């Protein structure tokens, strides 16, 4: 900071003004701020300046620098993207952006609803609306994402049942499976149940033979990672229950205006991601998880997040809200807990609540319908191309579907490279994740894809495959 501008006090550090600093040092009774560190043994003190890039004290210089870096990105609003696979491009209402950027929500932390009623109320409202969507009466505060909430749900099931084995579909998102293995691997045994190649449905015979007195939970995703809708979900729940295991369902909540609430087909625990509810993708930064259960002690006692409850006040019709399980999770129990609760993704819960309030029941239904119509159209258009099978799995789908290119001469990577030359991000390459599906990709279509966009994809694909 050798230049003139930097010599002035930094705009973020008000007391660095020399006269103020001198006054404060005098009151503390030290000659220089270095003297405040006399408690740190000299060998541990860094005797030099950190080697960092030159300061950009001027906000304008900083803006130019960071914008220069970002300019090297090509985002999904300039490209045409068909990527999904757990992070989805949806329309974000302006109201979501406005409320999510309000400084009061953005820069608050936590201090109870006597001084922060608004954020606690917004959190509780989100919980109430999310509960309606999934058919549950108990909804957690946020977890970090779907994968973390799935892992936490499995740990809950193990605690509740006293068992240590969990059964997952082999069609689970490989990313979520990695998270589950990382988080649950040390304490639980994770087994994968195979699926039927034609439909993507869970192999029920394999499930039956794997279920035992050791099974803590059967976990299912609806829609599945591969886009399909598990028609036998209710039966799978029954099978789990018959063995005393819990039935956990992971959901994409954007589907729940048209798809049944998981509780209605027997889910004991529902988990999933909030990102599709009015939250930008932000390179994966928009993910946020939730856990929902019936209002029963066994779930409330094992839910590994802080829980926000409504509390009536002395004034009729007035409520406050507060954390109610502080003493029962790691904040109170420390090592005697089964969670690593802490700051998670609350700002996204507030935004998701805004989204659900804007959409209402009608909006959620129309969203689901328009997505499914566009997805069906896209599958039909791609299926017309020589050598392309779409959808490659023959069950019903929501917004994603597998496209198989085995009949073409090119790999998915080559196809996607060709599409990118035409300004299109093709579907997620499944070749490594699901080798048994051959040269396949997972395409995602949402309400943001217009008919012309889908036609453009079909035309570009035809060119690339030629």
């Amino acid at each position, binding site marked *: 900071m050798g230049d003139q501008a930097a010599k002035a006090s930094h705009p973020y550090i008000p007391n660095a003004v020399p006269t103020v600093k001198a006054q404060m040092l005098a009151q503390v009774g030290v000659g220089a701020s270095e003297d405040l560190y006399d408690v740190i043994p000299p060998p*541990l003190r860094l005797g030099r300046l950190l080697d960092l890039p030159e300061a950009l004290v001027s906000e304008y210089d900083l803006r130019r620098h960071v914008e220069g870096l970002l300019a090297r990105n090509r985002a999904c609003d300039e490209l045409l993207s068909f990527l999904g696979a757990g992070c989805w491009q949806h329309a974000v209402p302006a109201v979501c952006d406005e409320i999510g950027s309000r400084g009061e929500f953005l820069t608050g932390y936590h201090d109870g609803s006597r001084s922060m009623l608004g954020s606690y109320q917004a959190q509780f409202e989100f919980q109430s609306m999310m509960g309606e969507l999934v058919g549950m009466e108990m909804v957690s505060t946020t977890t970090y994402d779907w994968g973390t909430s799935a892992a936490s749900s499995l740990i809950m099931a193990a605690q509740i049942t006293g068992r240590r084995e969990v059964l997952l579909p082999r069609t689970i998102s490989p990313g979520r499976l990695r998270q589950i293995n990382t988080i649950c691997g040390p304490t639980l045994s994770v087994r994968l149940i195979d699926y039927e190649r034609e439909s993507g449905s869970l192999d029920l015979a394999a499930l039956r033979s794997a279920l035992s007195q050791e099974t803590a939970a059967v976990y299912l995703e609806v829609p599945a990672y591969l886009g399909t*809708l598990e028609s036998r979900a209710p039966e799978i729940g029954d099978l789990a229950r018959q063995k005393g295991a819990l039935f956990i369902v992971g959901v994409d909540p954007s589907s729940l205006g048209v798809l049944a609430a998981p509780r209605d087909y027997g889910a004991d625990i529902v988990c999933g991601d909030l990102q599709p509810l009015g939250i930008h993708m932000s390179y994966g930064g928009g993910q946020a998880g939730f856990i929902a259960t019936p209002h029963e002690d066994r779930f409330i006692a094992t839910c590994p997040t802080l829980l926000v*409850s409504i*509390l009536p006040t002395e004034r009729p019709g007035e409520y406050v809200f507060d954390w109610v399980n502080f003493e029962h999770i*790691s904040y109170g129990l420390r090592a005697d807990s089964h969670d690593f609760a802490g*700051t*998670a993704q609350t700002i996204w819960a507030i935004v998701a609540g805004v989204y659900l309030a804007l959409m209402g029941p009608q909006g959620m239904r129309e969203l689901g319908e328009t997505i499914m119509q566009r997805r069906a159209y896209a599958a039909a258009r791609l299926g017309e191309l020589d050598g392309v099978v779409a959808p490659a799995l023959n069950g019903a789908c929501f917004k994603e579907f597998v496209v198989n290119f085995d009949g073409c001469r090119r790999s998915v990577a080559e196809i996607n490279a060709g599409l990118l030359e035409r300004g299109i991000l093709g579907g997620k390459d499944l070749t490594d994740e699901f080798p048994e599906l051959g040269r396949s990709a997972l395409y995602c279509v949402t309400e943001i894809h217009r008919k012309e966009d889908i036609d453009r994809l079909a035309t570009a694909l035809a060119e690339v495959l030629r």
Partner: protein
Amino acid sequence: MSVDTGGKVILREHFHQAAWNEPLIVELGRAGRRGVVPPDAGEELRSQVGDVLGGTPVGLRRRQPPVLPELSQPEVVRHYTRLSQMVLANNVAVNLGLGTTTMKYNPLINEVLSRSPKLTELHPAQDESTVQGILELLYRFGEMLSEISGMDRFTFQPAGGSQGILANALMMRAHHAANGQASQRDEVITTIFSHPANAAAPATIGFKVITLYPGREGYPELDALKRAVSERTAGLMITNPEDTGIFNPQIAEFVRVVHDAGGLCAYDQANANGILGVTRARDAGFDMCQFNLHKTFSVPHGCMGGAVGATGVQKDLTAFLPSPTVEFDGSRYYLDSRRPASVGAIRSGLGNVQSVLKAYAWVRSLGAEGLREAAHMAVLNNNYLAAKVTAIRGASLSFADENPTRRLEQARYSWERLAAETGVHTMDVHNRMIDFGVQGYFTSHHPWLVPEPFTLEPAESYTQEELDEFAAVLERVADEAYSDPETVKTAPHRSTAAAPVPRAQEHPAMTWRAFQELRRQGLV
């Protein structure tokens, strides 16, 4: 001529927080109203695909629409704007009371930059050639944190401090597993004044946890650590300075003792705000550390997240970092997922990337001198405030008898005397402070070893006048405790809502539906 007001102290006698009496959103609206309309697929497309819902498996069809409120757009905007006005947030009120959380200024330019579509509209699976800008930013910021901590590599995947601590516990385990000692080394040592996650996260993945308590000077004694280590020690997970603001001067010896026993040392740097550019984790011998970017590095807290637990390790442990890592081959940035020794994935994608961008922008704005200045001013602010707080009747600094020397960036105090003399407790004082337009304070994590605790952390962003204001509010409330304790005990009087009815917490309800049911049963 320059204007200097001389730092006049303000006491907001007539402050009143917004109190909108705003109903719950589920109590609002009329059938048929709507806030947004999803785009219609169009008649042409619809006619081509036919009845798509009819193809949905019968058991998965929604039969009853979700009971969501039906509101017009202006109603939604007003509702949430009103709620936002009932939050005494950091950019509205002085939040320095929230010790251990480093409430500092969250620069608005960083918000503007993070909302660029060049970031918000990126998909995590995009071709690497289309995300070179964000990958470069992540890579460069990893290098900066390595310089700041002395570590060799960082990951930003953990989306909170607790998840960063979990990542460190997982890497500890992976390190010992690689040496064939996973089952033998099953104990993690932590301290009671470290964040609870330092005990909970290792326990969650199966470690036994040994907790050290402070000695007379406020930090654990070396002998206690020596008694705790053994061939079963996997590692130490510790904060320094701890939540009391007391820096453990023997920290390098602590690390040595654990290393000699074959364990690793993880430094929870949640309390790093006073030591940036002053002392480094690696220089004290630590193997791994995590910074909370939502605390020390200016990222806003979002009323409990998005957060980042930026986690760094020394070079012998880089193979264990979560995957993928961001790499640079000299001309292009890329993601490396083929890392067989990695502990795996902690969070999807690369974490809260938008928050990493804000932290990067903060460090770039300050530079090396600015970072050190921020640390120095945070410590100066704290010691300046401590002198004022300890002069208040009824208040005292924890461990002051045995350890009167400095606190770094925060300090834990006690109202023990005030409570004994007036019957006014720390939460009463907290609630009364709100009436003067400052955010209440954080008491302490559990257990409360310091009786009637309160923990203050005046980060570098607060003005001398604001420190004076905060101290004046504390002094005023303490005076009231002696002269008019009822006013304090029934506070807040000028805030957003009344107190919950007694024992309301006995029947918690996390949704409106659950609450209605409890009400039907006559329980609430």
